[in-house]
């Protein structure tokens, strides 16, 4: 059929012309509807709403306020005659100690520190029992010098999150959205910063996590950080701390430090390695016991000593979750001044179990601050610990009430600021307001009665404490709980959307484009009705209106879209993999999805993708070798080989994530510790500039499509743009490496102009070519009969199209009208689109990334040829392999599924300052360049070497794009479900949550690019082809 209507006849009648006009309008309308479907219904809106729903329940965020507490400005006027503002006497309250030795024993569980008491008759002590008696002994024998209490951590019980709590007094959340998004340093008010700014000398020994949290706050000469990574090593770190801590306690070191922080990791490592019930744990605890006894002896009279655990450990010795064993740590304070008291003499003996009289870990912050004469950090939610302020005899309730009042006012001030910053209404805090009123009036009463008895002060203390407790409870509810309802709604919405994409991509067998208007109409109506119903219901039910409306909008849309398929149910099939390639695509997607439930597979995703892509490559090679047509066999096999080599070659570019060490060596930059390219790497862009246009040209020449605009674009403009990119990166390297010190920096920084001109070529020249170019054909009249033994075969088996087609049109029987490039009209015309995006995407990559992205582009061409040689256009193979490639080359362009690998500096390639919206767009192009390139190339699968008048082509393109999107929605669904399931997993923050966020962002981005750029771009390409050949009938 292709042969007949192949050519625009010069003598077209006016009837033909009106017909053509009509079908042109028809096509454009159909295309617009498909585009609208892809933007509005199919993926983007539904997925965006679903992801919003899930994240609103999952990513509980706390707003970090930049405010700092000031020494001279107590939150309330002081009542005890103390003059605020002096670090010497104490900022808000008279201080008790000049110096402090703070010892953190990682994973010191409470029951390690108290004597073993059998719960039942025959219970025997474990290895971790009775090995560390010193804390308990001192608390019982000299209660004025020491006390020991259970110390409850707020989950997650990971060291990093705990240190934040122990220094800021605030609760942990998944994301502390603050000014410093990428870094780990604490950017809210905290005790260490207060000490540093007050001129105190803080020395730190041990676990280096402190240094990423508080960079530069410690005395550089005396501080000794140790690597906390190696959990198999029980002793190096502890011995190192011991070696350096005892000399500092000598009298001659007085004045060299004010606060000494020692962080021991041996107990934690023994737990991780052996578990708590092991002789190694006994040894370790006994060693700690000896260390503390020595310290007590060496301790100065003016110093406070604190020993605490940051969390406990479970039965296997691991931690991170919120089980009792993991949150129950111990806190012990000691001083030779003997100022500690008990409100009840029975409290002298430390509680037998951690459920009795526990204190929160955040309570340490106000306690330490006031004891050391510091202001309480602004964001603190903890309360002062009784023993430290109640006086020796346990009756000084006036003092206790005073410190409690100070803390309560600090918390109240914080709550006010927080509500103002987040524009919260009063409803969330009404119960605290009531308690606040009671506390204030109780305090007033106590102040007014001049001869107030302890009882009145006790009441005032109790009232403030009640306020602080209630406030903490509300904050925990607000920040530290996953909202399972909205998470479930999000997962259901994702599942429903997945079903719609699956049905559209794999169930529909007829012409998708013809079916789309009905789906669009039903879907839009369903979404609108669902949204309205949700909004109405939420006014009755006690749920958030936005969430309920979003949920029912997606649900309504999904049900309506699926319902729209009902009338055509005969044309549907159950979407199970029925072919070999379909099965392989299903299997590899499934393996990836299941693998994301394991942190190892998530960490090693790049290697897995190489493995899967090579599997596809080898099987495509095998399949090509089985082709009967010799040309197909050779060309298919050659392209498969090229695909395999390109894939393996780009795997040499690696940027390792921390968890991959030591089994991975980064090659993306000059060295593992740098983020600049090596000198030799600047040659890669030149290589790309030479080879890539040549290879694209080769594929165009092969089907005789290297004509007209292709020559101008690929032959000239693309080469120019790529050469400019190479020059830009040489200048960049010269600037980074200071190769030519004699050239002023300003001259080199003019390179942004080069980058801007590359973008101008891509966007202006590229899109102009793409929009207005005619098909890449050459029509020639020839006298002789053209040779028929062309190098190419009939392109699709169901058509007789050939590269060289003869048409008997002219009156002279011997004259032949020959169209060069007929066979791949659609494919080459459309493939201009990915090539005009190439310069923009390559520009923002580092040299190494340009090499791999160019290999990605070559692999895309290989894939198109393989699919043609094996006639697999309608198989899910192409879209799924492209999705795998997008994911794979993401890693090969120097990224990982971790926030730390975002190359922020790519915003400054064409710009010197941050400019919105360009800077975020540039970072997006850099980060997801491979995803974008592959998504744009997807329609080419359906268009490569098909006859120009193939009916239903638009529907096939829509199917390919939907299959591509299907892969990413499967990944998002899997990572979301797994992140919800593993929400208490130790690696949630480091591995699962970043991967889930990345999957969501990639899904939305790919959907956006697929719809706007790819499907939108198809319009010009297909209209241009149809202007010459006419629209397909029917």
């Amino acid at each position, binding site marked *: 059929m292709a042969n007949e209507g192949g050519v625009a006849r010069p003598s077209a009648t006016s009837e033909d012309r009106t017909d053509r006009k009509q079908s042109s309008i028809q096509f454009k309308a159909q295309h617009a509807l498909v585009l609208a479907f892809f933007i509005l219904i199919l993926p983007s809106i539904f997925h965006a709403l679903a992801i919003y729903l899930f994240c609103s329940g999952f990513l509980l965020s706390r707003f970090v306020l930049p405010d700092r507490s000031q020494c001279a400005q107590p939150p309330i006027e002081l009542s005890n005659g103390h003059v605020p503002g002096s670090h010497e006497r104490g900022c808000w309250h008279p201080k008790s100690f000049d110096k402090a030795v703070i010892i953190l024993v990682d994973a010191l569980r409470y029951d390690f520190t108290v004597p073993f008491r059998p719960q039942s008759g025959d219970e025997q002590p474990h290895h971790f029992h009775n090995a560390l008696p010193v804390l308990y002994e001192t608390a019982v024998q000299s209660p004025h010098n020491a006390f020991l209490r259970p110390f409850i951590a707020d989950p997650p019980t990971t060291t990093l999150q705990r240190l934040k709590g122990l220094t800021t007094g605030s609760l942990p959340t998944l994301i502390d959205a603050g000014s410093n998004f990428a870094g780990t340093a604490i950017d809210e008010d905290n005790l260490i910063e207060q000490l540093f700014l007050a001129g105190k000398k803080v020395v730190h020994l041990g676990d280096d996590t402190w240094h990423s949290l508080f960079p530069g706050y410690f005395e550089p000469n005396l501080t000794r950080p140790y690597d906390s990574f190696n959990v198999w090593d029980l002793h190096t770190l502890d011995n190192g701390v011991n070696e350096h801590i005892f000399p500092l306690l000598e009298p001659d070191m007085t004045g060299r430090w004010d606060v000494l922080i020692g962080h021991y990791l041996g107990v934690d490592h023994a737990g991780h390695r052996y578990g708590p019930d092991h002789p190694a744990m006994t040894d370790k605890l006994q060693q700690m016991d000896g260390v503390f006894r020595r310290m007590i002896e060496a301790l100065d009279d003016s110093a406070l000593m604190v020993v605490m655990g940051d969390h406990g450990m479970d039965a296997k010795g691991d931690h991170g979750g919120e089980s009792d064993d993991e949150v129950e740590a111990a806190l012990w304070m000691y001083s030779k001044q003997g100022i500690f008291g008990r409100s009840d003499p029975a409290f002298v003996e430390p509680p037998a179990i951690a459920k009795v009289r526990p204190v929160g870990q955040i309570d340490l912050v106000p306690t330490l601050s006031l004891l050391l004469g510091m202001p309480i950090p602004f964001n603190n939610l903890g309360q002062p610990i009784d023993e430290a302020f109640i006086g020796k005899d346990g009756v000084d309730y006036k003092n206790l009430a005073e410190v409690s009042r100070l803390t309560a006012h600090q918390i109240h001030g914080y709550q006010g600021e927080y509500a103002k910053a987040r524009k919260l209404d009063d409803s969330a805090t009404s119960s605290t307001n009531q308690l606040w009123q009671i506390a204030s009036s109780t305090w007033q009463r106590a102040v007014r009665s001049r001869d107030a008895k302890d009882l009145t002060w006790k009441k005032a203390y109790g009232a403030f404490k009640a306020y602080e407790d209630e406030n903490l409870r509300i904050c925990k509810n607000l920040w530290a709980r996953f909202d399972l309802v909205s998470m479930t709604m999000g997962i259901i919405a994702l599942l429903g959307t997945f079903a719609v994409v699956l049905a559209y991509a794999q169930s529909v067998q007829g012409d998708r484009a013809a079916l789309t208007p009905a789906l669009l109409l039903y879907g839009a109506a369903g979404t609108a009705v669902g949204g309205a119903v949700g909004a109405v219901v939420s006014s009755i039910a006690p749920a958030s209106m936005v969430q309920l409306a979003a949920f029912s909008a997606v649900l309504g849309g999904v049900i309506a879209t699926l319902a729209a398929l009902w009338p055509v149910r005969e044309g549907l099939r159950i979407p199970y993999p029925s072919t070999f*390639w379909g099965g392989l695509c299903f299997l590899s997607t499934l393996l990836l999805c299941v693998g994301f439930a394991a942190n*190892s597979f998530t960490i090693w995703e790049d290697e897995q993708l190489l493995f899967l892509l090579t599997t596809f490559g080898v*099987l495509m090679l095998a399949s090509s070798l*089985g082709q*009967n047509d010799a040309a197909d066999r050779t060309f298919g096999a050659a392209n498969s080989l090229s695909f395999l080599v390109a894939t393996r070659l780009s795997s*040499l570019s690696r940027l390792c994530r921390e968890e991959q060490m030591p089994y991975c060596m980064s090659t993306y930059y000059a060295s593992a510790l740098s983020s600049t390219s090596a000198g030799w790497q600047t040659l890669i862009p030149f290589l790309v500039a030479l080879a890539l246009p040549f290879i694209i040209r080769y594929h165009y020449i092969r089907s005789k499509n290297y004509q007209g605009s292709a020559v101008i674009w690929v032959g000239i403009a693309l080469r120019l743009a790529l050469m400019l990119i190479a020059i830009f990166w040489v200048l960049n390297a010269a600037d980074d490496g200071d190769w030519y010190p004699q050239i002023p920096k300003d001259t080199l920084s003019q390179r942004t102009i080069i980058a801007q001109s590359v973008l101008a070529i891509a966007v202006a020249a590229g899109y102009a070519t793409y929009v207005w170019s005619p098909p890449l054909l050459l029509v020639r009249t020839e006298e002789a009969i053209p040779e028929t033994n062309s190098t190419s075969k009939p392109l699709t088996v169901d058509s007789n199209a050939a590269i060289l087609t003869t048409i008997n049109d002219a009156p002279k029987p011997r004259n032949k009208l020959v169209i060069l490039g007929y066979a791949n009209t659609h494919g080459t015309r459309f493939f201009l689109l990915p090539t005009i995006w190439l310069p923009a995407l390559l520009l923002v990559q580092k040299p190494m990334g340009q090499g791999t992205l160019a290999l990605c582009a070559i692999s895309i061409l290989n894939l198109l040829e393989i699919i043609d040689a*094996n006639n697999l256009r309608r198989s899910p193979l192409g879209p799924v392999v492209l999705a795998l490639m997008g994911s794979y080359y993401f890693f090969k362009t120097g990224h990982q599924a971790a926030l730390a690998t975002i190359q922020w500096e790519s915003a400054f390639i064409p710009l010197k300052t941050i400019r919105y919206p360009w800077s975020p767009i540039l970072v997006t192009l850099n980060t997801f360049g491979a995803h974008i390139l592959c998504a744009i190339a997807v329609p080419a699968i359906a268009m490569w070497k098909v006859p120009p008048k193939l009916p239903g082509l638009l529907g096939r393109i829509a199917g390919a794009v939907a299959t591509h999107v299907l892969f990413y929605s499967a990944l998002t669904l899997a990572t979301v479900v797994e992140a919800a399931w593993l929400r208490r997993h130790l690696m949630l923050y480091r591995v699962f949550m970043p991967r889930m966020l990345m999957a969501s962002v990639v899904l939305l981005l790919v959907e956006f690019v697929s719809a706007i750029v790819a499907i939108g771009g198809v319009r010009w390409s297909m209209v241009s082809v149809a202007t010459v050949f006419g629209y397909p009938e029917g």
Partner: protein
Amino acid sequence: MSSQTPNAKTASALPPFKHVDILQTPTSLLYANLQPVLLLSILLFSFKTLVQDPVNTLLGLAPTVTILQGLYCALCLPSTNQAPTTTSKPGQKKKPAKPAQDVWAKVVPALLSLLLVLVLSTPILYIIVILFGAPLTTHQPHTILLAFHLALLTTPQLYYAHGLEAQTWYKLVSLQLPVDELLGMSLGACTGAWIGAIPIPLDWDREWQKWPVTIVVGLYVGAVVGKLLGGYLFKGWRIKLS
């Protein structure tokens, strides 16, 4: 759908490919059934040393497996130029004359097949293993020996039974030939090795996760399972790649 027409056309032009039956003599039947047991027991007995010292163990196993595979070819398989019809009649009496010549007619192709394993299959499979992501700069002896064992289990029987003709091999690698014991064993070995790579990245910190132990285990187990499945359950099936 539409691709069936030309396939059928060309398939009729080429000689029809049938699945290969093993010889029906008692010796060959005995050995054909003994071979999986031998392969698995080798793996079982050497597993501990394989984990401790993969290179030397794989090197030490190589001659044994080579002999086992050579015997399998010579004893159980009809060689390329033997018409399969003559062997499929167990009742037919063979000429008792020239037993020595008969033996050589089997031993020489078997030796040639093993030689081809060394010079042809091993390099190709080595490249494929590298393509799949095997370490490029380290562990070279490991990878080469893995490729050799992979080649030993996948290819000698195919060389012996199908010869070296390009058309046949195109059909073989594109899995267009009907499944039999030989193809089953090769495919099983490849699939087993593929599956064997999966546990490597897991953070279980086991000694046996080191390169290439899991793949070797998958390879041997896969070969035996594939041989049994191909020889009995799926005999005569055709896998359609496209």
